[in-house]
Every structure is written in C-alpha cells, then in structure tokens.
C-alpha cells in the first residue's frame, strides 16, 4: 500500500526544515529506521529515518526545498499492514469608490419607534455583546487550525510577479504568516526579499552567491530577532589578570588530570551561569506579552563552524563544575565543527555566550539568539596600562583586560538589571587569582 512519508516534528520551536540530500531514490528499497533523507533546520542537521520498510516510489520535496513539519515529503510502497500516519490520524484541518456623504447613507435615529404601527421599541441588540451564538458561523477556517499552512493565493501571485523570495520575508500575520502587506512592503522597500539580482543582468564587477540553506536559516533567524526584540546594549571592562595567571599555572596539570582542554571558556561559562542564577530575569523569554523565567540555566555557546554559526547548548550549566563544563564544551564544540551535533546539543538554550574575543574582537553589539532575553560576548584579553588605586596612591600598571558586552531584550529588563548582571560577572571573574580552587 502507498505510505506517505511525513517530515517528522524534530524539536521545540522548529516549524520547518530544508531538505538536504536524499539518501534514497525512487525504486530503492529501504528498511524501517534506515536513514532516508538529510534535513537542515535552523538548529541542527539530521538524518530522517525511514518510518517504514518498503520501496520509495516518489520524492515529493526536492533538495533545497523548505517544508513544514508534518508535510508529506515522499511516498513509498509498503507491504500490507504498514499503515500510513496520514490514514490513521484524523483528517487534517482544512488547509489550511467614491466617498458618499453621510446624508446619502443616513443616520440612525436614537430611540426610534419601529413597531409595525410606530409603537414603542426597546432596543437590546446593541447592549448584548457576550453572545457567542451569532458568531457560530464565522468561518471556522479563521480558527487556529488553519494558520501557517502556506502562502495565500495573493501572496504567491505577488511574489511571482515581483520576484520576491518569500522564504526570506518575516511575516507579520497570525503565527508569522506572510501577508499581502508584507510582500507589498518588500516590493516597496526594494530590499532583502527581492531575488532580482540572480534574475537580472549582473555586471562583471559583481558576483551573486546563492546562500546555503543554513546561511538562509541564519539570515531569517537574525531578521526575526531584530524585528521582534528591542535590543539594548551595555558593556563593562573586566580585569582578568588573576584568571589569566590561574589558567597559565593550572592548564597543563588540569589537562593531564582530566584529559580535556582547558580554555578560558569553561571558566567564564561557570561565572556567567552563577550570575544568571542570581539574576533570573536575564534567563527568561518574552512570550505573548508575558515574561517566562526559565528554571534551567542552559547556556548556548556560539561556535563558528564551517557552514556558519551554530550554537550548541550546555545544559544545567549552573550545576556543573568547571571540570564538567570543560569536558562538555570540548565534546560539543568538536561535534559542532564536524557537523555531527544531535538535537539534544542545540535544544533548550536559555542564554547565549559568544567568545568573540577568540577572533580578536574587542567590542560587539551581538544580536540576541531569539527568543532568549540576552546574549553576552567575551572580547579579546589585551594587556593595557591601567590606573590602579591603592589607598591614597594611584599608579599605572600593566593588567590583562577584557571587555564583556551584553545585548538584552529591553522589554524584559532595563539597564539597571543588565548592569547588575554585568557587575556580577565582572566581580566573579575578577575574584579569580592564583589561590583560587576552581577544580
């Protein structure tokens, strides 16, 4: 029997994915759970296992195509007895002039007598608004079940007419639906959404690159964050001379004892996690007009992988020792760089830490990892002459200094709370010295 292969729901907040490479072609035999197709989401790349054993008969979603979770991506022929998910579940909900003078239209006479012979009339129709009976026939398709089932006819037509790349637009409609207005705004702006560059003559001085799926995902994610979250920024400088000294003194012993690399990252991560514990507002999300505080402190760590930025998550970071953090970071960064991350590796982040200093940066205004409340960058550690006060005496000394820069969702916190958090991280890092017991 024909079996519809649907794109499985792979994780929280993932609504769509890009089809990567089909590992089987029509005609191929496949066993249940064998890898069938590679998909790319904005969080992770993964192999989708075959939901049944049988023969692939048709590939519906082509490589590079963006499809919604739950959509049928292929058909296969199975032996009798295998029942398609689509057949067992409930049927899916339906996919989803001239201005007139007021006088011409007329005005309503207050308290007008309207009985058959002009008798007195008591109007109750305007005072009762609670009834639901009369809206019973308001098209059910307006309900939640139909949202986000694709683009409306006019959106599709306008996009084709004006060469707008719909997947690059951020929808303002219900559930992020791209509306007619969104397309017209993109045409008006003549900007991001237009794909005209690849269609039209491009002079020899320009080269047009089709972004990879993951590049496009990153782009959409960034636009969404900037569109939705009112960003504000704050930065402090941290004297990390003590931390640098501790790291230098303990690094090789640590690596011998524990078998994992020791960078500055697990140290800052531990301090950041404990500061988040003390400032729970920074570990939250803005959801439908409410602030949702997250109990778990799961810190995402931005990693520059070959194809682009990925953000593996260190779960329950506040409950781990530096040794444990170093071990987890080591593993996850390696998996990120080799493109072998699991969903678990990228899910559930509540805050993001980005060590931009590794690239030599000394200041940054990062874009928040939507829908989190804030992102912190640790910048390059540089030796600088610093004025140090010892009682009455000021002197200029050479210290290892590092800037830390926070981007925060101003709906959730104000500058005062952001500064409190930054001061907490700063004092936590500055407290480290050669005598510290960090293991």
């Amino acid at each position, binding site marked *: 029997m024909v079996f519809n292969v649907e794109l499985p729901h792979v994780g929280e907040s993932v609504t769509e994915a890009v089809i990567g490479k089909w590992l089987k072609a029509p005609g191929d035999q496949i066993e249940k759970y064998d890898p069938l197709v590679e998909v790319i989401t904005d969080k992770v790349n993964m192999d989708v296992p075959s939901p049944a054993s049988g023969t692939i008969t048709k590939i519906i979603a082509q490589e590079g195509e963006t499809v919604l979770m739950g959509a049928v991506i292929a058909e296969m022929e199975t032996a009798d007895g295998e029942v398609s998910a689509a057949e067992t579940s409930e049927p899916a909900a339906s996919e989803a*002039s*001239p*201005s*007139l*003078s*007021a*006088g*011409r*239209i*007329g*005005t*309503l*006479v207050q308290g*007008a*007598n*309207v*009985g*058959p*012979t*002009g008798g007195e*009339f*008591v*109007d*109750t*129709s*305007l*005072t*009762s*608004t609670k*009834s639901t*009976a*009369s*809206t*019973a*026939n*308001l*098209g059910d*398709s*307006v309900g939640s079940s*139909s*949202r986000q089932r694709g683009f*409306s*006819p*006019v*959106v*599709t*037509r306008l996009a084709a007419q004006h060469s707008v790349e719909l997947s690059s637009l951020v929808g303002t*409609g*219900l559930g992020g*639906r791209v*509306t*007619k207005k969104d397309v017209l705004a993109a045409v008006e702006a003549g900007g991001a959404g237009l794909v005209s560059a690849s269609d039209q003559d491009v002079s020899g001085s320009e080269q047009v690159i089709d972004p990879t799926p993951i590049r496009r995902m990153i782009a959409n994610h960034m636009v969404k964050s900037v569109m939705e979250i009112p960003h504000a920024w704050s930065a402090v400088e941290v004297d990390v001379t003590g931390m640098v000294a501790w790291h230098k003194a303990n690094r090789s012993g640590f690596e011998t004892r524990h078998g994992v690399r020791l960078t500055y990252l697990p140290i800052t991560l531990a301090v950041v996690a404990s500061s988040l514990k003390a400032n729970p507002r920074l570990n939250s999300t803005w959801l439908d007009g409410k602030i949702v505080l997250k109990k778990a402190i799961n810190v995402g760590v931005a990693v520059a992988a070959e194809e682009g930025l990925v953000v593996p998550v260190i779960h329950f970071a506040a409950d781990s020792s530096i040794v444990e953090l170093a071990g987890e970071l080591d593993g996850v960064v390696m998996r990120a760089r080799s493109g072998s991350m699991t969903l678990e590796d990228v899910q559930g982040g509540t805050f993001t830490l980005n060590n931009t200093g590794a690239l030599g940066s000394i200041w940054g205004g990062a874009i928040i990892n939507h829908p989190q409340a804030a992102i912190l960058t640790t910048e390059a550690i540089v030796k600088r002459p610093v004025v140090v006060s010892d009682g009455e005496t000021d002197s200029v000394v050479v210290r290892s200094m590092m800037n830390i820069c926070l981007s925060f969702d101003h709906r959730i916190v104000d500058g005062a709370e952001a500064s409190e958090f930054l001061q907490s991280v700063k004092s936590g890092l500055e407290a480290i010295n050669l005598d510290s017991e960090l293991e």
Partner: protein
Amino acid sequence: MPEQTVIEAVRETMQAEMRRDDSIILLGEDVGSRGGVFLASDGLIDEFGENRVIDTPLAESSICGVALGTAVNGMRPIAEIQFADFVWPAINQLVGEASKVRYGTGGAKTAPMTVRIPYGGGVRGGLYHSQSIEVLFAHTPGLSVVAPATPYDAKGLLASAIRSDDPVIVLEHKRTYRLVKGDVPTEEYTIPIGKAEIKRPGTDLTIFTYGLMLHYALQAAEMATAAEIDVEVLDLRTLRPLDEDAIAESASRTGKALIVQEDTPAVSISSEVAAIIGERCFFDLDGPITRLGPPEIPPMPFSPLQEAAFMPSPEKILAAITKLAEI
C-alpha cells in the same frame, strides 16, 4: 435637501410615481383607509381614490395573483405584503408564475409588477414578524430582488422597480423604516437594479452586506479605526442580480472578505457572494472568505435577550473584523 426616514421615502416615491403614471395601482392588506400597517401608503387613498389604492382580503395569494393578472394586462401594480412572514401563500404566484411570464410567452408578455415586502428582525416581532425571506426570491431566475438600506436608495430603487417591465421584489427592512434618516432629493431619480455601492471605502478588508446590517457594519467599521483597521463596506443593494463586478473588484482590492447578513447563512446570499469571490478573486485573496450570520435556528426568538443573541450586532461584526484583519 430634505431629510427623510426610509418609510417617508417609500411613501413619497409611490406618491410621485402614481402621479406620473396612471397605470400604477396599489393593493394590499390595510393599504387604503388604514394607510398600511407601517403607514407606507398613509393618505394615498385620499389622493388617488379606491380604484387605485385597493384594500384586499387577508389572502396573499390573491394579492399577488391580482397583481400578476393586472400586470400582464397593461397595468403597473404595486403589491404590499404586510409582513414578509406572510408571503408564503403567494410563492406560487411569484416564484411559480410571475417569474416565468417573459420567458414563457417568448417575450410576448411581461409582468411589470412590484411587490413591496417589509422583512427582517430586531423589532421584537418573534417568529412571525421577523423573518428574512430574500433567498427564496433571489434564487429565482426571472425575478429581481432589491434591498435598499437607506432613504436615498429606497427612493431610487423603488422607482426603478415600479418602472421595470419585469417583476421586482422590493425588500424593505422594517427596522430601518424609522431608524434610518437621510438626505433624499426632491427631484425624481432612479438607481439601476443590479448595482452595488461602496458605502465606506477602505483598504484592509471588505464587508459585504445589505439591509439593516449595512448600518451595523458601518458602525463596526468606525469602531475598527481604533485598532487602525481600515474597513471597506459594500452595500449589495440588489440581491438579484448581484453586482458581481463590484463584489469582485472590492474583494480583489482588499484581499479579505467578510460577509455579514441577518439571514441564516446556510444556502443564502452570503453563500452566493462567497462563491463569486472564490471564483473570481482566488489569486487576490489574503485570507479565508468569512461569513457572519445568526445561528441556524428558525428565526427569530421573541425574548429580547435571545433576539439580541441571535442578531448580528456592531460588536459581533467588530470581533469578526478584528479576527480577519489579524490573519
């Protein structure tokens, strides 16, 4: 320009037309010495006499049968049905016979008759004084059905109906009779049958409606400005033939259609408008074609609270506007 209520516009239009054309007669229950149950023909018997303003027995089949007989023999009768709820005995004369005269005689005969029918609820009329009966006639080829909602439209469309060489059903919403007041030019004018009118231009969505609901829709559109929703309101005015071009033009322009009616929605005017929009505007739609109407129960409850719950209201329309606009 004098201000009139709908009922005054109806009365003066009949009077002016009867002065203009001697072949026009008026017949119905109590239309003579009583002046009509709503006083639509008040005083006309004094001016035109018993031969042109005829009190009939309580027999709607007779009223419409006589109207049809006089019409095919050269007169221009205006029949009044006291309440739409009483029109059922005359269905044979109207749907079964009058609608077929021109076609059935190969154009040799026509039936230039007007049937005025007060309809609609919101007047605490209960089951037998509140019905919306437009669908029965609007479904019938050979009949025209108009439903003016303003004094201006009442005059222009009634004049067109009286002058039409084919039968026209004029539906007057009885709630609007003394509720709606507006400018009506003294001079004679007609409004073409089959022409809708945009009563309020807008850009975000269009409400398609008629009758009393026009006024509720306009109120709701005004309320929606608070949420910066710019609502267009199109008054269908004629229910057969529907102004398909105007409907399609507006729906295509705004991309979202909300159809509001007082009649129960199943197999109704709103079904037809939705079909037109679906057929002609598919590639311009940016939301589901949406209908707002009362629940599917035999209209209409007598209890004031239940009647209010049954009838669409500006608040209910506003809720539908908001929902559709947000999509």
